[in-house]
């Protein structure tokens, strides 16, 4: 329901299912037999990632059905459900539209300053939601409620669609489009019938992550005064001393997440086995021709500029304004360098761990395919719909009961971050595993290499860009994480986000601004790298080719 705006019809199938079709059942059987280690690792990762869900069920169980029922079936719940679903549908649709349009312009047209746009369009993702939310509500106080939330969240999240779609557009074999054109299809018809369906996995995957991220979002909605399940879960935990009630509401959120996942599953498993570009044809693909914008250049550049100005310029302006304001605060000061070092160390460790966790599951689910793999993949993604607060309290619960020595150590914080952001890592790693031809692994293995050697010498080098992208995505998201950090950070240690919180909580925005700027600066580095990586990803070999071919665009 939440993804109902995705293109209907078309002919692709899920990657997991299609690899089954592509490789044939006998070979699949062989692989299945050969991958017990991978399977075991994947299941272990799934168990780790799903621990917070078990915690929720235990907690809600404590409350008893009576209380859960009173809490779930009151007027507010329906209001929350409506708010959350409306928001998810609108923002997901808007992100898909903007993401696909921007990706198409950057990848398939001769728009000026293409490489600059490729980076600028990704950067908004590096700006913490609470900064964007505050920027808007302080400059335009009328921006609040549903439409305010739609605006702010769309501008912050569209890169999650832009990135995979741009990568898919680069990787797609232009032959099919050319055939369609030669058969007399118009430009728009070709886009709708050929290009869009081939983008479907990337588009739906991006939309899904946007939707799940929205479910878990808190900071921006608190500032924009928009009530969702997550803001209410926070209230229950924070004011109600009511962990069980909050857990019950969180389970409702999980159910919403499952609906979104199921919808994505339905939409992406269309009919037939054609449509997926096989890995082999990818290797042989050429650079698609770039369309000349001609008279459209000015409007398109104007639209891109407007997008960058709203998504990037406005928060930057608000931060600059804060910076010029008085930094007076009655709060004590702390070392910004130390806070930045903690932030960078925790986030980098979490990014590395999340990427490592995602690797076996991505390899297993993409290469093996089938129902079990699909369940494994979807169940681990649902974590993205859980607020950081829930993951943090689950971490407290498990640590206190089973491993008290890790409680409030950096290690536990890193593990919680890794679980929290595992879905982002998984989506990025999976995208490049899909692109990597399994045949090379098989060749290496048939030459007598041991599986571990094949992994290190062949597989990992092939999917390195995906691993790097996963690392960067998790890193920049972890840098701006706040609620789980407040609960799990070692006592006495400050990070940039906790310091920003302390100042912002005290309404000392001038004093908070330098921390926000430092956050954005640290997060911008990986965003820039992701932008560059995705930009260069599959087309490195064709750098010598002319970017436009005038004749082909007519």
């Amino acid at each position, binding site marked *: 329901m939440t993804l109902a705006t995705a293109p209907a019809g078309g002919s692709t199938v899920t990657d997991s299912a299609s690899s089954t079709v592509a490789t044939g059942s006998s070979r699949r059987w062989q692989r299945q037999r050969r991958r017990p280690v991978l399977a075991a690792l994947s299941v272990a990762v799934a168990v780790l990632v799903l621990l917070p869900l078990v915690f929720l069920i235990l907690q809600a169980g404590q409350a008893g059905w009576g209380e859960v029922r009173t809490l779930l079936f009151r007027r507010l719940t329906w209001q929350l459900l409506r708010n959350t679903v409306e928001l998810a549908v609108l923002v997901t649709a808007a992100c898909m539209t903007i993401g696909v349009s921007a990706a198409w312009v950057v990848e398939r047209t001769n728009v000026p300053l293409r490489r600059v746009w490729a980076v600028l369009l990704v950067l908004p993702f590096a700006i913490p939601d609470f900064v964007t939310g505050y920027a808007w509500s302080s400059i335009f106080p009328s921006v609040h409620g549903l439409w305010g939330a739609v605006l702010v969240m769309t501008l912050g999240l569209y890169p999650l669609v832009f990135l995979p779609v741009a990568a898919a557009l680069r990787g797609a074999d232009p032959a099919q489009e050319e055939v369609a054109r030669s058969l007399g299809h118009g430009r728009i018809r070709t886009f709708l019938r050929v290009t869009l369906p081939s983008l479907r996995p990337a588009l739906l995957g991006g939309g899904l992550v946007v939707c799940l991220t929205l479910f878990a979002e808190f900071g921006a909605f608190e500032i924009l005064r928009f009530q969702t399940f997550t803001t209410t879960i926070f209230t229950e935990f924070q004011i*109600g001393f009511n962990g069980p009630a909050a857990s019950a509401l969180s389970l409702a959120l999980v159910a919403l997440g499952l609906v979104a996942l199921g919808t994505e599953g339905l939409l992406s498993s269309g009919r037939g086995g054609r449509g997926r570009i096989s890995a082999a044809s990818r290797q042989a693909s050429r650079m698609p021709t770039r369309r000349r914008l001609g008279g459209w250049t000015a409007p398109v550049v104007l639209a891109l500029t407007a997008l960058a100005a709203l998504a990037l310029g406005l928060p930057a302006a608000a931060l600059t304004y804060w910076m010029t304001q*008085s930094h007076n605060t009655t709060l004590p000061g702390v070392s910004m360098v130390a806070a930045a070092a903690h932030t960078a*160390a925790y986030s980098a460790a979490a990014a590395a761990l999340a990427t490592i966790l995602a690797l076996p599951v991505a390899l297993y689910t993409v290469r093996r395919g089938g129902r079990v793999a699909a369940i494994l993949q979807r169940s681990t993604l649902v974590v993205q719909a859980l607020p950081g607060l829930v993951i943090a309290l689950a971490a407290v619960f498990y640590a206190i009961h089973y491993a008290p020595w890790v409680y409030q150590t950096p290690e536990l914080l890193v593990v919680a971050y890794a679980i929290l952001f595992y879905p982002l890592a998984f989506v990025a790693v999976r995208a490049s595993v899909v692109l990597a031809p399994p045949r090379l692994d098989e060749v290496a293995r048939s030459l007598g290499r041991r599986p571990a050697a094949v992994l290190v010498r062949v597989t990992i*080098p092939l999917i390195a860009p995906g691993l790097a992208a996963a690392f960067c995505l998790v890193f920049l998201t972890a840098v701006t994480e706040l609620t789980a950090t407040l609960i799990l950070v070692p006592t006495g240690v400050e990070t940039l986000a906790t310091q920003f919180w*302390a100042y912002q909580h005290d309404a000392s925005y001038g004093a908070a601004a330098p921390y926000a700027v430092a956050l954005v600066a640290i997060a911008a580095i990986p965003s820039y790298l992701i932008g560059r990586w995705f930009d260069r990803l599959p087309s490195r070999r064709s750098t010598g080719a002319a970017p436009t071919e005038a004749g082909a665009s007519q």
Partner: protein
Amino acid sequence: MRLRRRLAQRTRIGVAVALLTVAAVGLAGCGSSGSGSAPAGAAGGSGDTITLYNGQHEQTTDALVKAFTAATGIKVNVRSDDETVLAQQMEQEGRASRADVFYTENSPALAELSGKGLLAPVEASTLASVPAKYSSPTRDWVGVSARVSAIVYNTEKMTPAQLPKSVMDLADPKWQGKISFAPGETDFQPIVTSVAKTVGDQGALTWLAGMKANLKGHDYPDNETIVAKVNSGDVEMGLINTYYWYRLRASLKGAAMHSALALFAPQDPGYLINVSGAGVLKSSKHQAAAQKFVAFLTSAAGQKVMAASDSFEYPIGSGVLASEGQQPLDSLQPAPLTIGNLGNGQHAVQLLQQAQLL
């Protein structure tokens, strides 16, 4: 050729990622070595370290902690978060809690832990330095400072004569769009408890419905924002504790204020003295040092630090008086609401939930 070059490039990226991973895990590991607290010192003397879970405003806590460490040599590790989140966290931690002392802005979070049996009795001499009405009836936490609820109004948009005399009047439709309050702040719950005690639950719900309708357009997330918005003229009035206004004035460093404070009529249900307090965790392995810290908070030395700091809460212990310019605590005439009436605030939360404000 091309494929080989590409593989080589990719290998380099792979190596880079691997190196980053190792570096990051190493860095995070290093961070952990310094975070453990010192072993227990039975006497609670110099060289000890205690952990304070702090729900109080950081500027208040910071000044007190510095003075305490200077006086005793005992170090204090401070962990700050919303007091209710910290209370939840300590309930989860149970006997394994890392906290030695819990210091809060309002009494309900302490009452919650007290109700769960997680607090140790406070030393009698500490309790004796503060009037009994400001401390736990079960003697397991002690009041540290007092906070007074009041109206803040924009002096260019309102005159003192126009101000409502009772918190009950704020629900009148004539104030629609002119009043702001933060139902999610723990400072608001005592007022709800007080109103319910005065007019009953049904009356409180009617009042909350009126308040909710009047809040439209000005439902700011916290009291800091409310006092700033009143001062800037975005909204006419706000329901806050007085110290928020004093702190805004202090942080604006002498710039002209466009707002002022006004108290409700004597004994009005909205005219409350709330208590910020502290308690020692039963599970603390540093009982002596923890008790010393709580004793310091209520001592003349600690109370003077509070009175001189940017906290602007009322000192209540050891005969120390508030900083100049604040109306003396003794001259206030609040509603007769006790700590016991407030409890852990859950009844107020339920009313707020029924009114769809939470």
